[in-house]
């Protein structure tokens, strides 16, 4: 295994650790989905997929990143922190005066391209940003993480349709396909059908990857071609709660934080 892969796996482990600690301190928040996307976030931000020069004078040249399923923001905050965004300041999630709002807030953190929380909105803002970049003939791309549950919102499909209409090949959706939402499995709660087929039918290029095998994630994103007039979807098959055994695939951990006992158990597991 290459050194890079090993390093990225380490980053993912650190992100899981930071997320768990952040949520434990906050006493509330979305743990399961945050853990499930740790490998993807490590690959995107530390694996050379998203161009993200956060130093002031280069910030305009960044690829845009939108977390449309805003509730898993702890993993995004942990990522920004590991990138050095917050410097030495250690803000506390969900507490008064902290920029780390319970759902990502544009007016609190510059790197949050748009405030998200209500599902089905960030995807549309991502379309708007991709359109804006095209109209200005800029070559940056827009990456947007969306959840499977978010595809129960009608406005999500409005965004998907319009992205293909405007031929936004600079737009990449990453679908966190963990098959779980707050009330149970996505198949029981709703009727999503075959998401890959639905996207293809509307004019998107669709890629699929296991969301936890680092070489496969990197390979998949390398295959995502650029200028072909079609928006791209990467479906990441993930396990909610990945990395902490008792959280994995248990939808009850969608919307809650670890208590002291759970926190200690989780941290022990993550240190192994």
């Amino acid at each position, binding site marked *: 295994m290459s050194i890079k892969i090993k390093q990225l796996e380490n980053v993912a482990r650190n992100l899981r650790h930071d997320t768990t600690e952040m949520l434990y301190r906050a006493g509330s928040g979305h743990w399961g989905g945050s853990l499930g996307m740790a490998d993807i976030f490590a690959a995107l931000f530390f694996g050379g997929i998203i161009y993200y020069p956060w130093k002031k004078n280069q910030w305009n040249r960044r690829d845009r990143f939108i977390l449309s399923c805003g509730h898993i923001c702890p993993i995004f905050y942990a990522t920004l922190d590991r990138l050095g965004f917050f410097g030495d300041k250690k803000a506390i999630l969900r507490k008064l005066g902290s920029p780390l709002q319970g759902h990502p807030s544009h007016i609190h953190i510059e790197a949050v391209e748009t405030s998200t929380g209500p599902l089905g909105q960030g995807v549309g803002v991502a379309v708007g940003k991709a359109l804006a970049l095209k*109209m200005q003939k800029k070559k940056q791309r827009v990456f947007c993480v969306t959840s499977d549950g978010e595809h129960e919102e009608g406005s999500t499909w*409005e965004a998907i*349709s319009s992205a293909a209409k405007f031929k936004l090949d600079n737009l990449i959706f990453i679908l966190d396909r963990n098959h779980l939402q707050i009330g149970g499995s996505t198949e029981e709660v709703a009727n999503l059908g075959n998401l890959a087929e639905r996207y293809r039918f509307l004019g998107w290029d669709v890629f699929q990857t296991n969301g936890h095998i680092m070489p496969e994630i990197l390979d998949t994103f390398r295959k995502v071609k650029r200028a072909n007039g079609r928006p791209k979807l990467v479906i990441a098959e993930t396990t909610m709660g990945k990395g902490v055994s008792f959280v994995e695939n248990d939808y009850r951990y969608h919307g809650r934080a670890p208590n002291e006992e759970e926190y200690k158990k989780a941290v022990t597991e993550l240190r192994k």
Partner: protein
Amino acid sequence: MKNLQSEIKNLQLKMSCRQGYGDEILALAKKNKKIIVLSADLMDSLRVAEFKKKFPNKFLEMGVSEANMISVAAGLALEGFVPFTSSFAVFTPNQAVSQIRVSVAYNKANVKIVGSHAGVSIGADGATHQALEDIAIMRAIPGVTIFAPADYWQTRRAVRAAAKMNGPVYIRFGRGDIEQITNEKTPFKIGEAQILKKGKSGTIIAHGESVHRALLAVAELAKEKLDFGVVNLPTIKPLDEKTILNLARKTKRFVIAEDHQLTGGLGSAVAEFLAEKYAIPMEFVAIRDKFGESGEAEKLVKKYHIDTEDIVEAGKRVMGRKR
């Protein structure tokens, strides 16, 4: 022959606010490269077909998907463009409230939302298409500037002001060709009332198409020796508190007229403000917690009691009350 000439003159005088929007946005785009027009399949109704012709690369047809139109506009604004979304008031804001609240207002995104066909006076389309709560919705969202211009030229000025300022704006107007109150040279300042006539007995405050009815009502009241003033308030938010407080102190009685629900409209805004600063007797001419229906505009305005005679009656009623 003479009759025909005056008829033609009258026809020329009547113009729609939506035409004002279409004409002004076209004029603005010639100078301001950042302006983008989005439409949710209502290009002709909003009078932006000409804009599409002249600026095909600045025009985005979003289809019948208002929620997405607003989110996309937010994305464009956050990247530096000045997007104007074009639809009916019943669709924007009503069908995209969460998008307006979070993606536009909470983000402080520089989006301009144009809602046409507001009020019961759109007539034939019926209750589903008569926005009567749009101002209430938008007033309750922090940081949104709200314009409700009274005629063609004021709409042009409002659109111009919206393009110039930074921040979310909602521009609301009706559908029809209406009498002109202002002209090309009438000043327009954000948050500033336009005093059309001063009066001693009391003041009638109105926005949109009700301004014309307020002027007619004042003439009627004058016959009864009542000297009412008329104020056109094209900016609903921020409220011109200074002028309102001055007039409250001077004239002691208000009648507030609008083609909108009483709940959350201009009347509500003025009452909230004066209740804290200087309470005076007020009468409201507005829709009283009802849906509209199909019909001719004039008949609906009468049936839902927002007509000239309702303003006159309200004027008389308020005279019988004391501070």
